[in-house]
């Protein structure tokens, strides 16, 4: 074994264990680690289960709507033998479901990274004001009566401008002790400022613009086309985060003191904020400020699979995506032909699940 760090005279000693010291290897040390959870599933099964749920919600989204498509019809269409109506319906529904999938995945990952960065399980992707910037951009575009694609572009621009301002204001806080508190306060102030501008825009908007603005603020993905670039943001973000998971774990465990374990603190914090901001900007430009997913999905996943980011990253992505696909399917079917903003459904669906988990946790603690 290499010992390149020892300085002075590295003492001669056995390579692994200290002499004269009894070591009882702990059974779980050699086997894959498993979290101390109520649901005792090995990580691979847990991810397989979540993947299954994710595919199931996509199929459900394809099947349900004003004209229900049965499994037989879906199968025919997939083989290229379906009738024109079924094919068109399936294409429309699948596109919308995939848009919901990527938006939910991006929000959940953004929330998870933000919670780890701030060491606060109650942080969410919107706490830094990135979504506030996007909302200001989008509402401004709606107020000016611009086209849909211009509204989305304005949302991205707003998020980018706000992230830029945040990075500039907090440029010295990333490596500093207790720097995240300053970072959080800076973000919260920017968020508050955006809130004021949003209220102003809602006040001066004409009545016929208000509905669109409210839908945007609550979060709604109807009418959003399937775009390639959110996938191009999510994939590298996920891989980067997964690759850095051991360092992010240390940051979540020790905060500032993670630096003494060799974590490049400033660089990692900058990376986390950058990833979370890009994911948030991507998600809000797709569907507005959809609430709950970014806050509660990582939290719920943590209750089930423990705090280790290596497992939590893929689990949160799959769970967030599934939740949003399911919520969006309900949003367009429960009161059809009327469509609800999906943001209402995410909270209505998610809160009971979390109450159920909380009561289990209470029982475990009792």
């Amino acid at each position, binding site marked *: 074994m290499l010992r390149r*760090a020892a*300085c002075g005279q590295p*003492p001669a000693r056995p390579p692994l264990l200290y002499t004269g010291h009894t070591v009882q290897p702990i059974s779980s040390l050699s086997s894959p680690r498993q979290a101390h959870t109520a649901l005792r599933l090995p990580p691979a099964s847990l991810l397989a289960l979540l993947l299954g749920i994710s595919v199931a919600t996509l199929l459900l989204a394809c099947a349900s709507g004003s004209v229900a498509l049965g499994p037989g019809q879906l199968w025919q269409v997939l083989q290229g033998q379906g009738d024109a109506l079924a094919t068109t319906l399936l294409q429309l529904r699948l596109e919308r479901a995939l848009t919901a999938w990527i938006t939910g995945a991006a929000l959940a990952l953004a929330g998870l990274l933000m919670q780890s960065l701030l060491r606060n399980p109650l942080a969410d992707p919107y706490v830094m004001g990135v979504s506030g910037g996007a909302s200001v951009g989008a509402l401004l575009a709606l107020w000016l009566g611009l086209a849909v694609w211009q509204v989305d572009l304005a949302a991205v621009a707003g998020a980018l401008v706000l992230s830029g301002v945040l990075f500039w204001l907090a440029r010295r806080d990333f490596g500093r002790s207790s720097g995240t508190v300053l970072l959080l306060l800076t973000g919260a102030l920017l968020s508050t400022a955006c809130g004021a501008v949003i209220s102003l825009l809602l006040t001066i908007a004409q009545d016929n613009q208000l509905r669109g603005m409210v839908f945007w603020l609550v979060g709604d993905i109807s009418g959003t086309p399937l775009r390639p670039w959110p996938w191009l943001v999510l994939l590298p973000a996920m891989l980067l985060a997964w690759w850095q998971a051991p360092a992010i774990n240390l940051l*979540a465990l020790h905060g500032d003191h993670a630096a003494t374990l060799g974590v490049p603190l400033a660089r990692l914090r900058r990376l986390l904020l950058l990833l979370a901001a890009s994911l948030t900007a991507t998600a809000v430009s797709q569907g507005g400020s959809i609430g709950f997913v970014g806050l509660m999905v990582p939290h719920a996943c943590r209750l089930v699979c*423990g705090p280790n980011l290596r497992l939590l990253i893929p689990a949160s992505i799959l769970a967030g995506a599934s939740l949003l696909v399911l919520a969006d399917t309900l949003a367009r079917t429960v009161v059809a032909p009327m469509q609800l903003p999906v943001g209402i459904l995410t909270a209505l669906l998610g809160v009971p699940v979390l109450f159920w988990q909380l009561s289990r946790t209470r029982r475990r603690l009792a």
Partner: protein
Amino acid sequence: MMLHTDKLSILQGQRHLLHQLGWQVQAGEVWWLAGRNGCGKSTLLATLAGLRAPAQGSISLCGQPLGTTAPRLRAQRMALLPQASHDAFDYAVIDAVAAARYPWPDDGHNPGRIAAALNAFDLARLAERPLQALSGGERQRVALASVMAQDAPLILLDEPTNSLDLAHQAALQVQIRRWQAEGKAVVVVSHDLQFAPAIASHALLLDGAGGHSQHPLAQLSATHLAEVLGYPLTRITHAGHPCFLPGHST
């Protein structure tokens, strides 16, 4: 030489906590850092660990300036036990200890080292427990086991006996002597006048106004210590180790 400071000065606001400290810590030495509350002991440790920039002077670790040592290499050379930490997330004990292997990418999850660290601090039974379910003393032992798992030749301990019961304080003494015998260097901040003198080979006393003095422990008199601690002391020998008691000898 493990650690070398040259004309190191530390300021807290406008106040000089430490003025021009020239200090050398060699392999196999155990330094006791003593002084009153707020005299800068923890601040000095944080500065040595690179968490805080010194006002003046230089620090070198294993002959290399601290500022130019890459974070990971620094962590391979030096471990820090901070004072009480707060846990935001519910990692299991074994995960927290295993995470301290991060500085060693080629030998990251070394089960032998992790098991040895858990055993040394009597944590094998608690390995699967979540951190937030631990008592203060148990949490402190997890922090100590993490420092041990990190396996650095220089170990900085900030009040390591905090919350530890007597038996585990004794186990910690044994472990520090073992580190010393292995050629590691240890710097201990402690207010325990029985624990620290029993393990230390040297003492660095801080008076909180910038002043400092260094003594081999054999020559550390009650008068020296009483002066910086602001309380009369008597030096006695107990069970073969020096020990300080409050009050004048009669």
